[in-house]
């Protein structure tokens, strides 16, 4: 697998489209699912997933191979998704301020509860509440929690993606769960 990955990376560096196609086929669901869990919009997640692969194609020369290819791609996907969320929040704030001054722009309305397509039908309502609470976590806690719970990564893998120690991830996840519990208590 590692050997195959090395060959793929080498071929992509040489500009072989077949290697790029294989990488997209192998990682598209992983990237899309990661983006979707952070941005909670299928259209935006699709758009960001494409951006992620564009960056993979353009930056493969700078990939040093110190981490696994999947780890590097996870890092790009989370960074781009968080950037998108920041831009969205900024736009929302700006829209609110503009609406106060009455320049005719509308306030951005919060989207309805997000339903992840991979959640079992009987858990959908609870999962929507959980996603809504996750949205209020800090960026680090949110990414650590989603990579662990939605993508099923181990603590070690999450620490590789986030480039922090495993103990930091344990601490982040512990705080994330406590914060989620508090938020849900207030809601119930």
């Amino acid at each position, binding site marked *: 697998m590692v050997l195959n990955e090395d060959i793929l990376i080498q071929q992509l560096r040489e500009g072989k*489209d077949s290697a*790029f*196609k294989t990488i*997209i*086929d192998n990682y*598209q*669901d*992983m*990237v*899309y*699912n990661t983006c*979707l869990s952070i941005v909670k919009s299928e259209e935006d*997640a*699709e758009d960001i*997933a*494409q*951006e992620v*692969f*564009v960056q993979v*194609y353009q930056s493969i020369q700078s990939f040093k191979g110190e981490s696994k290819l999947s780890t590097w791609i996870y890092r790009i996907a989370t960074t781009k998704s968080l950037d998108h969320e920041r831009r969205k929040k900024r736009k929302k704030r700006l829209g609110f301020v503009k609406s106060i001054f009455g320049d005719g722009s509308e306030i951005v309305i919060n989207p309805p509860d997000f339903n*992840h*397509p*991979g*959640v*079992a039908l009987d*858990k959908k309502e*609870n*999962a929507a*509440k*959980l996603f809504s609470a996750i949205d209020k976590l800090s960026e680090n806690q949110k990414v650590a929690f989603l990579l662990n*719970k*939605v*993508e099923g990564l181990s603590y070690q893998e999450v620490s590789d993606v986030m480039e922090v120690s495993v103990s930091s991830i344990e601490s982040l996840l512990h705080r994330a*769960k406590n914060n*989620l*519990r508090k938020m*849900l*208590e207030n809601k*119930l």
Partner: protein
Amino acid sequence: MKNRSENKIDEILSSLDGIKRAEARPFMYTRVMARLQEDDVKSVWGRAVAFIARPAVALACLTAVIATNVFFIVNSERTETKTVATGASTVTEELLQNDNLVLAVNNLETGE
């Protein structure tokens, strides 16, 4: 013993257990390649704009435009001077011709 509310929270917190990976729409590769080509076109324009926006290039363009304007202005002034000069000599010739004519008539009348 946990109360009802705590049970509900635990239920919510565990709602992502067993979640399946969402699948991307088909033909991702085709869409990404289209995007890469689109980016290439954009980058060509971007490079062109960046080149024009370089201070040295912008200054050179500005100098060329000013020099062209100055050249045309100076050139048009010279043409005007020539035209005026040509016009003036024609008038003098005509006047001289008239003077000669008057002198000739006078000579005839006096019978010289």
